[in-house]
């Protein structure tokens, strides 16, 4: 089907005003932040989608999806556009982007049953602002909170900065509504718990738009006690000490909302005002007073236990101030884009992995060693480090961060810098049994390792695709490796 025919059909299914074919918007819709530099330099190597559509209900989403399904058109679901792994990148000539712009209503905030129901296009910040008015919080606070929307946050299995207390999005979603390529609308009801077969919420949560379109979600809400917040910061000798203290707090059964350990390099870029070229360990405790007091005691005890690795304590106010300015607004994102027009540089890239407590330090050390010794552009790195920022009773994550002078053509940047670095990180992680993607999703640029990530369980992932998206129209190349997409990767 040619593009004009696609647009004509979409305009008939929806209204013409719900179908966007503006070339600039289509260019923007061709890729996400994975190729931010190439995008700004106008050298994207992928096709533009045919149109962006803005349905107003699950019914309309269903109609668009079944049209695309019957016509073999690729569909890219879209919400806040903060994707970092290529989930929004387009690899097909005929693609329809379904944007959640008009699915923008907060449907219900139920403070008795402690849950809120919102449509997929509601920015998380908007929900949080509404909840705060009445002394509640969603407990979900990714750095992209001001921009990311609930549909995208659920679709990527995102995680917030206070996850160690509140959990990831998967711990918060109570029920949801989603639409499959056939047009079928599924509503998963909101209950406290059930044992009615496998937990089908998890088919939609984390599907990255590769199985279904999420139109509505119900999440838990929490009482908010900002007056009880307590912050701790320490300069520590090495990452091992940091990981040991984090583990001690977690395995003793405590849940600080924030528990982080930063390498020297990463600490230097975050805590320029006090890092003294040391690693940094920090905590935040929040919640009811009694829980906060007990958590603080647990933190202090853990630090005491590993005091040989602790150099000095820093003023908790410094940590609080830092936290209050950590999120990225749309303006920050726009400023970075603007900066990339002028300079051969950007704010850097990250790769986030997870593993159990004993494996994380090994992965960290192996990665650092390999990058320094075998990455051919190591001399261009201006920063290479990492931090652990989300801890669990059995392990933690590692957020590798790196930046570099860009000494290549903009269209080659990812292949010359980010991807080879990410490859080392992913290889070392998978080799030691960790997960290659803690919270950004697989997108399109980690799909070459999806099978390794899941091993024999890839069978289950594959069957989901066959069952729910038999024609393969949902977000071609996302999560599932595709031969045809390799030309955009290698």
């Amino acid at each position, binding site marked *: 089907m040619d593009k004009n025919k696609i647009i004509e059909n979409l305009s008939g299914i929806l209204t013409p005003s719900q179908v966007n074919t503006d070339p600039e918007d289509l260019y923007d819709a061709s890729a996400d932040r994975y190729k931010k530099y190439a995008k700004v330099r106008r050298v994207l190597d992928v096709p533009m989608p045919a149109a962006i559509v803005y349905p107003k209900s699950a019914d309309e989403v269903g109609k668009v999806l079944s049209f695309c399904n019957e016509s073999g058109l690729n569909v890219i679901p879209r919400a806040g556009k903060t994707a970092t792994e290529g989930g929004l990148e387009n690899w097909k000539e005929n693609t329809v982007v379904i944007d959640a712009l008009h699915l923008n209503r907060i449907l219900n905030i139920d403070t008795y049953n402690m849950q809120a129901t919102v449509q997929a296009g509601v920015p998380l910040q908007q929900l949080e602002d509404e909840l705060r008015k009445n002394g509640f919080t969603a407990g979900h606070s990714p750095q992209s909170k001001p921009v990311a929307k609930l549909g995208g946050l659920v679709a990527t299995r995102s995680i917030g900065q206070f996850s160690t207390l509140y959990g990831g999005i998967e711990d918060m979603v109570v029920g949801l509504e989603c639409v499959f390529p056939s047009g079928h609308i599924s509503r998963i009801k909101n209950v406290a718990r059930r044992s009615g077969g496998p937990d089908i919420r998890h088919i939609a949560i984390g599907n990255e738009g590769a199985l279904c379109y999420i139109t509505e979600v119900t999440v838990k809400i929490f009482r908010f006690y900002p007056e009880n917040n307590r912050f701790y910061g320490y300069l520590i000798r090495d990452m091992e000490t940091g990981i040991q203290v984090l583990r001690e707090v977690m395995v003793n059964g405590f849940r600080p909302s924030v528990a982080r350990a930063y390498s020297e390099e990463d600490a230097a870029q975050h805590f*320029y*005002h006090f890092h003294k070229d040391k690693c940094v360990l920090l905590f935040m405790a929040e919640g009811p007073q009694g829980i906060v007091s007990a958590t603080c005691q647990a933190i202090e005890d853990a630090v005491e236990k590993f005091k040989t690795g602790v150099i000095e304590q820093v003023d908790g106010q410094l940590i609080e101030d830092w936290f209050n300015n950590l999120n990225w607004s749309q303006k920050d994102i726009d400023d970075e884009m603007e900066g990339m027009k002028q300079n051969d540089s950007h704010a850097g890239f990250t790769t986030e992995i997870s593993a159990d407590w004993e494996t994380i330090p090994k992965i960290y050390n192996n990665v650092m060693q390999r990058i320094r010794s075998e990455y051919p552009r190591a*001399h261009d790195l201006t920063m290479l480090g990492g931090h652990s920022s989300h801890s669990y009773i059995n392990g933690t994550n590692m957020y590798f961060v790196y930046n570099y002078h860009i*000494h*290549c*053509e903009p*269209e*080659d940047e990812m*292949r*010359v810098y980010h991807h080879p670095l990410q490859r080392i990180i992913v290889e070392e992680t998978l080799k030691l049994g960790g997960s290659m993607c803690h919270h950004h999703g697989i997108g399109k640029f980690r799909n070459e390792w999806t099978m390794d990530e899941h091993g024999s369980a890839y069978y289950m992932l594959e069957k989901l695709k066959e069952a729910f998206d038999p024609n393969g129209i949902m977000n071609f190349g996302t999560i599932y490796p595709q031969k045809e997409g390799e030309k955009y990767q290698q």
Partner: protein
Amino acid sequence: MKIICAVKFVPDVDSVVNIVGTATGDPETIRTGRHPRMILNPDDACSLAFALQVKAGNPGCSVEVVSAGPLSVRPHMEDLLRLPVDRATLISGRFFDEGNSSGRHNSSVTGDLLAGYIADRPYDCLLTGTQTLDGGSASVPVQLAEALGLDQMLGIIRVDPHRFDTRRAVFEVADDTRITTYEMVMPCVLSLTRESGYKLPYVKLTDMRRDVSDDLTVITAEELGFSEGEEGRTGSFTRVMNIYPKTYDEKDRHIVQNDEAGITEVFDFLKAEGFL
């Protein structure tokens, strides 16, 4: 039009070693430092960038690069072929062999070697940098011009692309007080500085993956007809006197808060330093 660029690869560490008392670097001492990476000398990179700009606007133009240096710079020369330059030649041999402790190169010999090679090549213009990061006396371009019997100009900050052809070149040279425009008859040696700002294009990824090892010409001083005495230490009129690590002053780092006191302190500092 045929342009030949004479270039040198230098250590990317002006913080590690700097050489005084001579116009020339000492690869041995540099090697025992922090194994610095070699880069194309910045002034030379500008001259090559200008040449490639001329070539881009004139399909008939060819650019050849020649360098006298150790075999270890081979991969860097290959990268120039990937830019692409039309021909790249590395003059090497015992003289530049980093394992040979008696082997010292010096500007006069380098100039002679380059001239010995270039004399048999067709060219309308020779481009070089003015100074090298690891040297600093700007003598190679002068010696090269002298050996070839050509006019030469150092310190060029801009070449008029519309008045640069097989007959003449019009260009600007900056000194401390003024910018002067010159016209010179071709062939001649034009030596640019990094202030010219000509920027080399990056090697494209597809070209990075291209095997160009067979395209690089490597010749030795002997093949150019230089005898042992001429190419070795005895051929040198200059000598390394002393080598010392370059150090930078420790900055007195003082962090202030974004509050009244901090703002006042920054304001007072800027005033005291004469910025306000």
